[in-house]
C-alpha cells in the first residue's frame, strides 16, 4: 500500500496515544470497529464544564491508515466544542490524509469513533444531571451550573 506522507507521519509519530479514566464522568469513550474486520478504534475525550473537548486519547488496532485517521481526529477534536466536533466528517479525514479508496472505511471509523465518544459522554452527563436533579440543589451546585452551560 502506498500512503501519503501525512499518513506515514501520523503512523510513525502518532499523536495522543493512551487512555483516559473511563469511569471519570467528564470522559466519553467510543469503541468502534471489530477485530474480525481488522479495525478497532478506541477514542476518548475529556470534556470541560463549558462543553469544550480538553483532551483526547486513542488506541487503535488496525492498519496504518486506521492508526493515522484516529491520530488525526484526536488532534482535530482537541480544543473544539462538542458541537463542533460533531461536524467532523469522514470525507474531511480522507481528504486530509489523502487516503486511497480501499482505505476510506478507516476515515468512516474515525468519524464513528468521535460520535460514539460524544454519545457516551452525553449519556453519562444525562445520567449525572438526572441524578443531580433528584438529589436536589445541595450537592455540587457549581458542577451543575457547568452542566447547564454545556446544554445538557
Amino acid at each position, binding site marked *: *500500500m502506498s500512503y501519503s506522507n501525512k499518513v*506515514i507521519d501520523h*503512523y510513525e509519530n*502518532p499523536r495522543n*496515544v493512551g*487512555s483516559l479514566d473511563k469511569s471519570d464522568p467528564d470522559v466519553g469513550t467510543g*469503541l*468502534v*470497529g*471489530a*477485530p*474480525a*474486520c*481488522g*479495525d*478497532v*478504534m*478506541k477514542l476518548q475525550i475529556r470534556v470541560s464544564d463549558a462543553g469544550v473537548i480538553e483532551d483526547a486519547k486513542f*488506541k*487503535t*488496532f*488496525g*492498519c*496504518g491508515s*486506521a*492508526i493515522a485517521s484516529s491520530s488525526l481526529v484526536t488532534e482535530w477534536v482537541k480544543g473544539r466544542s462538542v458541537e463542533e466536533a460533531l461536524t467532523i466528517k469522514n470525507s474531511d479525514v480522507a481528504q486530509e490524509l489523502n487516503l486511497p479508496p*480501499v482505505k476510506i*472505511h478507516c476515515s468512516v*471509523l474515525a468519524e*464513528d469513533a468521535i460520535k*460514539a465518544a460524544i454519545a457516551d459522554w452525553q449519556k453519562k452527563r444525562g445520567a449525572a444531571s438526572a441524578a443531580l436533579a433528584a438529589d436536589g440543589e445541595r450537592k455540587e451546585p457549581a458542577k451543575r451550573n457547568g452542566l447547564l452551560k454545556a446544554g445538557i
Partner: protein
Amino acid sequence: MKIPIYMDCHATTPVDPRVLEAMLPYLREEFGNAASKSHAFGWRAEEAVEAGRAEVAALIGASPKEIAFTSGATESDNVAVKGAAHFYKDKGRHLITCKTEHKAVLDSMHRLEREGFEVTFLPTGKDGRVDPDDVKKAIRTDTILVSLMHGNNEVGVLHPIEEIGRITREKGVVFHCDAVQSVGKVPFDVEKMNVDLVSVSAHKMYGPKGVGALYVRRKPRVRLIAEMDGGGHERGFRSGTLNVPGIVALGKACALARAEMADESARVARLRDKLSAGLEKRLDLLTVNGSLEHRLPGNLNMSFAYVEGEALMMAVKDVAVSSGSACTSASLEPSYVLKAMGVSDDLAHSSIRFGLGRFTTEEEVDYVIDLFAAKVTKLREMSPLYEMSKEGVDLSKVEWTNAH
C-alpha cells in the same frame, strides 16, 4: 548486513549468482532458437535446452522426456488442470482439489465449474493438511483429476502427497501436484509420490522469473489438451519458442538444489526455528499457523495477537515479509488459506509470513527478532484489544459495532 532484509522467499527468491552466470551466454552470443534445425546456433541452443531438461528431471526423479517447459507455475497449473479435465471429460466430469490451493489451481477449477465440471474443494485440518482419507472418500467413479499442492505458499504446510498418490494410483485418477514451493527445498520424487503432473517454477528456487516446467507422466501415460496452439513445441503441450536462457537457468537452479538441498534445508530450518524461538521468548500471545512437523524449512507463519499485520509491516519496513491481513489486499478479506484452516479472522489479520532462504543469515535473523519484539510491543501499547485483554475482558463476548 544489508538493509532492507529480504524474508519473503515464498513470493520469489533472488537469482543465485551461479545461475545468472550460467544463463548469461544465452542472452549474448548463444542466442539461437532451439527449434532451428539447420544451423549451429539452433543446435547449440537445443543442446542447452536438453541439458536443462535433464537437470529438472533428475531433481524430481523423472525422465527428461516427461518435462515440458512453460512460462512458470501459473501456466503449468493451468495446462495441467484444464488440459487434463478437457482431455478426460468423456471419462467423467468430477475434479477434486483443496480450499488452500494457489489461485492458479482454484481459479482454473472455477472456470471448469462454469464449463459444467463438478469440483470438490476439500477442507484441511487445523494443521493445514488434507486428510488422505478425505481424498479417498471424495473420489467417485466419474472423478478424473485430483489436484493438490505439496508445500503451501502461505503456511508452508506439506500435504501427505505420497499417501494421496497411492490412493489416486489405485483408483486410476490423474494426480496433479503444484510443487512450486517445495521442489528444490525438500525431496520430491515423482515415482515415490505417484504423481502424474507436477508444476515447477524457476524463480522460487533461485532462478529467474518467467520460466517453469510441467512434468507429464509417460508410464502410465497421462494426456492433456494444450492451451496454446502453434508450432507444436514441447511434444505439443506448449507451443511457443523456447526461453533458452530461462531454461538454462532453471536447469542450473535444479542442479544446485540437487547438490545442496540436504545441507541447505537443515541450515534454513535451524534459522527458522531460531526465529520462532526468539520471538516466542520476547513476546507473549503468539501462534504459529499450520503444522510445525510437516512444513517447508524456510516458512514461519505467525500471528501476533492484537496487532494488525499491515501496520506491523509498516513498522518493520527494513524487513520484507508478507501478511495474511486483508489490508494487504484490495479485497478486504483476510487470507483464504488461514480461513480454511479455521484460523479466526482477527488472528488472520495479525499474521505475518516469514520466508527464509538460501541467502538468509544468522545476523539477519537476530536483527528481525529484535525489531519485531520492539515493534510488536509498541503497537500493542497502542492496541485497544491488547489493553482489554490485559484487563481481563473476553473479546469474544464484546458486541462490536461494525461487523462488515
